């Protein structure tokens, strides 16, 4: 009974989102960027590295902004759905997946298709590509959940949109600056543990580390990556990062479910 409701809500919302121009443009952007990088670099490894930065920047931004805007415009329809004999938990699950899945499809399809067409021979590159697609999906899941939290928290959609952009700026721009500042100010002290903790506390940093561990070039890409590699090189590092990413999906999703249950629409 309840699984049917979730499935149906996901199905129809998926259709609605997939037909939106924003989502088509989003998928097309990754498709073009990937194809262009593959052609111009002529080298899978370099294309993947550039794509990593693009994914880390663009996925959180688009997911947050499109997610909150979509949720505000779906507000009245959500009320109509809530007036049906369905539970709020089921409805939240349906709405969440119905938004996260098409967004994830935009990244995975857009980045994955050109590689699929061109073919990837080296198994190590294949693993890197798989990691990139997984991390893109994880970031989508995380920031969709945060978008839900924002849209449920703020009644006013302008405030909500502002909050979404603020979250993105904080996580993708300000946070790194803060980490660097701390590192330079307290450079006389052993900071590894603190930096590790700071990395776990920001999903974008975490995603970056996850990819860098996979690419095995962490020393080139920032302080946190180097520290992480030293501490958690190999299987343990991957496990910790994966677990932390899962936690980053679960935490905002749990907050979202809770406020969806309590909210007065």
């Amino acid at each position, binding site marked *: *009974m309840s699984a*049917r*409701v979730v499935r*149906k*809500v996901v199905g*129809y*919302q998926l*259709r*609605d*989102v997939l*037909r*939106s121009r924003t989502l088509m443009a989003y998928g097309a952007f990754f498709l073009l960027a990937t194809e262009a990088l593959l052609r111009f670099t002529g080298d899978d490894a370099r294309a993947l590295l550039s794509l990593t930065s693009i994914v880390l920047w663009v996925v959180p931004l688009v997911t947050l902004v499109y997610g909150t805007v979509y949720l505000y*415009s*779906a*507000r*009245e*329809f959500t*009320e*109509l*759905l*809530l*007036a*049906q*004999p*369905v*539970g709020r938990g089921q409805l939240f699950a349906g709405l969440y997946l119905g938004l996260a899945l098409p967004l994830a499809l935009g990244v995975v399809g857009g980045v994955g298709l050109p590689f699929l067409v061109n073919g990837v021979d080296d198994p190590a590159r294949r693993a890197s590509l798989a990691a990139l697609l997984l991390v893109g999906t994880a970031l989508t899941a995380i920031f969709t959940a945060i978008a839900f939290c924002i849209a449920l928290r703020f009644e006013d959609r302008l405030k909500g949109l502002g909050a979404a952009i603020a979250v993105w700026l904080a996580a993708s721009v300000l946070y790194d600056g803060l980490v660097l500042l701390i590192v330079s100010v307290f450079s006389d002290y052993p900071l590894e543990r603190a930096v590790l903790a700071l990395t776990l506390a920001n999903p974008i940093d975490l995603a970056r580390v996850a990819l860098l561990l996979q690419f095995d070039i962490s020393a080139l890409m920032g302080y946190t990556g180097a520290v992480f590699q030293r501490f958690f090189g190999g299987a343990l590092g991957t496990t910790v990062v994966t677990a932390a990413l899962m936690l980053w999906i679960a935490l905002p999703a749990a907050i979202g479910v809770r406020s969806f249950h*309590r909210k*007065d*629409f």
Partner: protein
Amino acid sequence: MIEIKGLAKRFGALEVLRSVDLTIRRGRVTAIVGPNAAGKTTLIKMILGLTRPDAGAILLDGRDIVRDGDAYRERIGYMPQAPHLPENLTGAEVLAMLRDLRGPAATVDESLIDGLALRPELSKKLRTLSGGTRQKVNAVAAFLFRPDLLILDEPTAGLDPVASGVFKDRVRDARAAGATFIVTSHIMSELEELADDVIFLVDGNVRFAGPLGELKAVTRQDNLERAVAQMMTRGAAA
């Protein structure tokens, strides 16, 4: 049919409903009227379970809706005020979605689709439809599952006169067949046509609740618009 006891709701500093007691009778059309921000929409949303009461209870046929779970809404058809539907779905898809949510057991009544001449519009994306046409989709959705309680929030706003007439006939037919209605509207003449009972809310208090004829008698007015206006000015003076 619906018994409301001591219902109170506050949004921050704003008291939207202050200990409201009401009875909504079966098989009748009850109009909720009152100035803006009187608590009409909050009252409706509470009956639907969209908004939770701070205090008090809503009993539907004697059962508390807050404790009763979600199943009671199987009996309710809701027509919300603003017809914001998913813009990239078609009308047919939205109706199919609602049907799928109810499950295969739900019996449907699509007669209003032809009544409102909506059939040719149903295959178009909602984004491309006018506000009035989207409101027709909402109207069909409200009547779709043969509900015995219908909650209509400004139902005819945006409907053209022909559609509005068809819709009101549908309300009368369903009422004659035993359905109960709760309607809000700013169009007093329309409520006068449809309503049996009137609930008059001001600042979250019930100022009047009873049959339409009684409201007119109390205010010594011969139509609802003047009766309500009289109530409002009297309220402002008091």
